[in-house]
């Protein structure tokens, strides 16, 4: 499918206060064919995402590409497809950053992954409940990054799927009334994905059924203590 070639277009924002870990995550992401931007703090991450008004003006942040995310009302110059952030950082923690992203109407659809050197089940739960897609235990490995693909692809594929579905429906039922006028983003939110989704078959790895969603619905489960999480992204 053509989407595989589109991997190189995906842009990941990596946040970590450790210079060593930034270098590492950058190399891991580039090896996996993502475009990468690294920043050393949560506040710089928010600035990059366009959430904070910069002191002065936008000239201090020269646009990387002319592409502006269609979901964004703010001054975000570069589209970010995923944020991966360290948990323990001075000032704004990764959890604080996650919250701010999920509370923002323009940014909340961006998948967020948390990394931590410490395997603390309550920490993992908290992050997942706040909307993190995955929780990686450090040091992060190349094999971990394979789990990013589903979350990044989902936002792109979902849009495509909706378009295809609408086209099918209009062909089959000879659509009389105009198609729904909801913006695409909201359509994605209304359609809860079924368990076995077509796009899962395209992935290299088998992702197990939504452990994460189960955990959220049923409360704490034994799976919670596993440091590495595989779950279906929930678009909030």
């Amino acid at each position, binding site marked *: 499918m053509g989407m595989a070639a589109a991997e190189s277009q995906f842009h990941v924002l990596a946040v970590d206060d450790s210079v060593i*870990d930034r270098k590492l995550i950058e190399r891991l992401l580039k090896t996996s064919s993502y475009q990468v931007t690294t920043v050393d703090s949560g506040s710089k991450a928010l600035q990059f995402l366009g959430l904070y008004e910069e002191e002065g003006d936008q000239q201090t942040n020269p646009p990387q590409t002319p592409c502006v995310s269609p979901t964004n009302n703010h001054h975000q110059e570069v589209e970010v497809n995923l944020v991966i952030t360290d948990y323990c950082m001075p000032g704004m923690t990764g959890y604080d950053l996650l919250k701010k992203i999920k509370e923002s109407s323009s940014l909340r659809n961006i998948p967020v992954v948390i990394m931590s050197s410490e395997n603390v089940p309550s920490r993992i739960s908290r992050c997942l409940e706040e909307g993190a897609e995955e929780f990686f235990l450090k040091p992060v490995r190349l094999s971990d990054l394979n789990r990013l693909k589903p979350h990044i692809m989902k936002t792109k594929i979902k849009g495509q799927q909706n378009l295809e579905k609408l086209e099918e429906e209009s062909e089959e039922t000879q659509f009389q009334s105009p198609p729904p006028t909801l913006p695409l983003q909201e359509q994605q939110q209304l359609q809860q994905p079924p368990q076995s989704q077509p796009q899962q078959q395209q992935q290299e790895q088998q992702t197990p059924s939504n452990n994460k969603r189960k955990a959220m619905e049923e409360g704490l489960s034994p799976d919670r203590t596993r440091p590495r999480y595989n779950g279906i992204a929930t678009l909030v």
Partner: protein
Amino acid sequence: MDTVTQLQRQLVDYTNSLFLEGFLNEQFNQLQQLQDESNPDFVVEVVSLFFQDSERLLNELAKILEQKNIDFKKVDAHVHQLKGSSSSIGAQRVQRVCIAFRNSCEEKNIEGCQKCLQHVKYEYTHVKNKLETLFKLEQQVLAAGGTIPMY
């Protein structure tokens, strides 16, 4: 045995010894796997950052532990960083001492912390020497016209 093969054998043996003796662990292999023609110096670059960062942290720790009223939270924060970075490059012994160091911090055990600082300095210096030797051997192989063997 020609020079290149001899040097390569030396390099492989030396590297293996570092793993066997617990100076390095699997994470170091992960770093090596990220190195390629487009990033031929990746391992050296990351390790150099580790050296710089560690020396900064060790100096800070020495300062803090010299004071009358020790800020254990600060000590812990620095040790946490050192633990993280040593873990990221696979410097196993340093990482392990950091774990013990954090326990001393939690207990607010001054003597324990000072001992741990000495211990971590020792392990850091040790692994630094080992890695510098490793890099020198790699350079020798390359200079002799050989390639670095995949471990």
